[in-house]
C-alpha cells in the first residue's frame, strides 16, 4: 500500500530512494522494515496452518503408534499407508483434494497433516522400541499395570525420540505451508508468488526469511517443551 503512495510522487527524499530501489527490483532491506506490517497476516496464517497440521498429525500418529505398540503386526501396514501419504507431493495433494474439500485452509491442513503422519509415527514407534528392557522389568517389579507402565515408564523414556519426530515434522511443515497459497489458504507463500509470478526480489527474501525464522523458532520451542516434560533429565545434567 505504501508502495502505491510512494509511486504517486510528492514524497520525502528518504522515501524516493526506496521507491527507486523497489522500482529497479533490487534487494531493499529498508522497504522490508517499512512494510513489515504487510507480512503479519500471512505470518499468522502460516503459523495457523503449521500448528493445526502438526497438532492434528501428532494426535493421529501418536494414537496409531500406541495401537501398533500393542498389536505389532499393524506396524507394517501403517508404515506403508503413511509412507504413501508422505510421498505424495503437497501441491498434487492440494489439487487431488480440491474437488472434495474445495479451496481454502481445510484442504491445505488435510494435505499438510497427511504429510506429518509418517515422520511422527515412525519416531514414536522407534522411541518405544528403544526403551531398555531392564527399565520395563523394573517398572513391572514396582507393580505398574500395562497402562501405568506405558505412561509412567515407556513414554517418558521415549520422549526424546518422539519430540525429535515432531521437530522434523514442524520444520518440514513450515516449508511446505508456503505452497498453501496455491490451495487458496494464504500463508507466507502469498508474498513469494504474486499472481503466478515470482519476480519481486525483496518480497521473496523477506517472506522466505520469515519462514526460515519461524521454522527455527518452532524448533527451539519444541526443545523447550521437551525439557519441561522431562525434569529428571535436567536434574542429572552435570
Amino acid at each position, binding site marked *: 500500500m505504501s508502495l502505491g503512495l510512494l509511486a504517486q510522487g510528492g514524497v520525502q527524499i528518504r522515501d524516493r530512494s526506496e521507491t527507486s530501489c523497489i522500482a529497479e527490483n533490487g534487494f531493499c532491506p529498508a522497504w522490508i522494515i517499512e512494510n513489515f506490517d504487510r507480512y503479519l497476516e500471512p505470518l499468522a496464517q502460516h503459523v495457523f496452518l503449521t500448528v493445526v497440521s502438526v497438532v492434528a498429525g501428532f494426535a493421529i500418529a501418536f494414537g496409531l503408534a500406541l495401537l501398533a505398540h500393542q498389536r505389532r503386526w499393524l506396524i507394517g501396514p501403517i508404515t506403508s499407508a503413511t509412507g504413501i501419504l508422505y510421498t505424495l507431493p503437497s501441491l498434487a495433494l492440494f489439487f*487431488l483434494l480440491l474437488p472434495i474439500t474445495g479451496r481454502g485452509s481445510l484442504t491445505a491442513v488435510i494435505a499438510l497433516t497427511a504429510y506429518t503422519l509418517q515422520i511422527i509415527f515412525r519416531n514414536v514407534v522407534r522411541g518405544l522400541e528403544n526403551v531398555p528392557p531392564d527399565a520395563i522389568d523394573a517398572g513391572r517389579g514396582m507393580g505398574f499395570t500395562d497402562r501405568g507402565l506405558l505412561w509412567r515408564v515407556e513414554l517418558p523414556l521415549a520422549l526424546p525420540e518422539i519430540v525429535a519426530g515432531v521437530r522434523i515434522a514442524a520444520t518440514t511443515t513450515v*516449508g511446505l505451508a508456503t505452497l498453501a497459497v496455491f490451495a487458496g489458504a494464504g500463508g507466507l507463500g502469498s508474498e513469494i508468488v504474486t499472481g503466478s509470478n515470482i519476480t519481486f526480489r525483496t518480497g*521473496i527474501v523477506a517472506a522466505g526469511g520469515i519462514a526460515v525464522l519461524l521454522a527455527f523458532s518452532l524448533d527451539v520451542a519444541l526443545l523447550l517443551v521437551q525439557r519441561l516434560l522431562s525434569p529428571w533429565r535436567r536434574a542429572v545434567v552435570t
Partner: protein
Amino acid sequence: MIFIDAIDFIFNTREAQTGGVEVGGLEQALAFTWAHVQLSAVAMLVACLFAVPLGLWLGHLGRGELVAVSMSNIGRAVPSLALIAFFAAYIGVGFTNVTIALVLLAIPPILTNAYVGVRQVDREAIDAARGMGLTAFQIVRRIELPLALPTIFGGIRISAVNVVATATIAPLAGVLTLGDYILSANVYGDAGRLAGALMVAALAVAVELGFAWLQRAMTPRGLRPEASG
C-alpha cells in the same frame, strides 16, 4: 465427474480454456513427464556426484559432524518454493538455474545419510580390514561403502522424492514440467489441473517405490533381514 474428465484429459486433446490451441492428450502428457523426469534426474545425478563422495570422505575421517548433520536440519527449514523463487528472481529462469536450485535442495539429506552411514559401520570391521593390510582407499571402497550403501540409498530416496515434488513448481521459473498443468489452470482448465496432480502423484510414488526396491537390492546379501534369520 471431474476425476473421469481428468483421465480423459490425459488421453485426448481438447481446446484450451483460452481458446485457439489444443491442449492435453497423451503426447503432451508424455512430453511434460519426460521434462519432469529429465530435470529431476539431472539434479539428482549432480547432487549424488557431489554429496556421496563428500559424505563418505568426511565420515571416513570422522570430521565435520556438525556440518554434515546440521546441514539437513537447515535444508529442511528453507522452503523449496522460496529457494526456486530466489534463483528465478535473482539469477534468472531456465533449465540450468532450476537444476542448481534442485541440486541445493537434494544435497543435504544425501550428505547427512552418507556421513551417518559410514559412521555407523562397526569399528571392529574397519580395524580388522586395517589388520589385513587394506589401504585407506580400500577400506572406504570395500568395507565402508558397501556397509553404508543402504543408508546412503535411504538419503538418495528422500532427496529424489523431494526433487520430483519440487520440480512441480519449475514452470514458475520457466521450465515446463507436469506442474504446468497445475499452475496454469487458466489454460488447461480444472480437468487439466487435476490430471496434472494425478500424474505428479503417480510419478512421485513410482520414484519412491523404485528407490525402495533399489535400496533393498543394494543391501549386501549378508545384511538382508531374511538372510540373517
